[in-house]
C-alpha cells in the first residue's frame, strides 16, 4: 500500500466530493460530505482492503488523510 493508493481509496469512499479535492494533506473532517456514514465506510475499507482494524477514535484523532495512512500502515504486517 502506497500513500497514493491509500488516498485514492479514501477518496473513493465519497460520493459527491471530487477525488481531486482529497489529497494526503487534506484535513478530511472539514469536507462538506464528511459524516458518520463515511466514518463507517473508512473503517470497513481499512478492514476489508488492508486487514487493519480502525476505531472511531483513530479517525477522530487523525487530522489529515496522511495521518490516517500512517495509522493503517503502522498496523499492517
Amino acid at each position, binding site marked *: 500500500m502506497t500513500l497514493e493508493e491509500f488516498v485514492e481509496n479514501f477518496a473513493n469512499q465519497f460520493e459527491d466530493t471530487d477525488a481531486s479535492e482529497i489529497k494526503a494533506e487534506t484535513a478530511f473532517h472539514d469536507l462538506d460530505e464528511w459524516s*458518520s*456514514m463515511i*466514518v*463507517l*465506510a473508512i*473503517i*470497513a*475499507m481499512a*478492514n*476489508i482492503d488492508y486487514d487493519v*482494524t*480502525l*476505531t*472511531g*477514535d483513530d479517525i*477522530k484523532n487523525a487530522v489529515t488523510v496522511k495521518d490516517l495512512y500512517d495509522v493503517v500502515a503502522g498496523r499492517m504486517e
Partner: protein
Amino acid sequence: MTSLLEEWSKMEVEFNPFSLKGKTILVTGASSGIGKGIAVACSNMGATIILVGRNNERLQATFDLLGNGDHVICSCDLTNQEDVARMVDGLPSLHGVVHCAGIGQRVLCKQLTEKVLDQVMDVNFKAPVLLQTALLKKKKIESGASIVFIASMASWSPSMGNGAYSASKGAIISYANCLGLELASRGIRVNCISPAMVWTDLILKDGLTETQLREDESKYPLKRYGTPEDIANLAIYMLSDASIWMTGSNVKISGGAF
C-alpha cells in the same frame, strides 16, 4: 412458634418458578458479553452450565465466576464442523441451550463482499443452526427442554452499516420459528431474544466511538443501554419452567428503544 414473617420468607424460597435447579444448560459465546452474563446468571439459578467458546483461557475466566455446580468448559470453534461433532459426542443430555456466539461487523451495503457476508453468516447463522442439528441428531436435547437464540432488534430496525448483521439475525429468527414447530410435539420450546444495544465488546469494537454510543444511549427512553445481566434475566425466564407455554416467540428487550 414461627412468626408469620418467617412463614412468608419460607414460602418465597419455595415459590420460585424461575429456578433452573437440576437443569444442564449449554451456552455458546460464554467467554464474553451476553453469553458470559447468561452463563453466570443461570449458574446462580441452580443450573449446571456447559461453557462453549473458542478461547479456553477466557472460558476459564467465566468459569471462575459461576455459582456452585459441576460446570464444564468445552472449547470449540463452532464454525468447524469436525470440532462441533467431537464436542457434541461428549455432551450429556441438555435441558437448555442458549445460542449466544455472534459477531458484529459494520460494512456499508455498497462495500459488502462475499468474505464479509460469509464471516457474518457463518458465525451468526450457520454455526448455531448446524450445532442445533448436531445436538438433535445425537439426541442430546431432553423432552421439555428450552432453546434460546440471541437475535437482535437489528433484524427489523435498520442502522447504517448493519446490512449483513441485521440479515443474519433475521435469518436465525426465521429458522427458530421452524425449529419450534418441529420440536413442539416433544414439549421442546424455542424462543428468541432481540436486544437493543447492550454494553459488550461487540458494540465497542464496532466502529463507533464510545462518545457516539453514549450520545445514542441518552436517547433511550430508559436512559441507558442494556447490560448482559438485563438480557440474562430474560434468558432465565425462557429457560425455566415459568415459560412452559411459550414457544416461537421473539421478545424485544430494549430499554424502550424501537
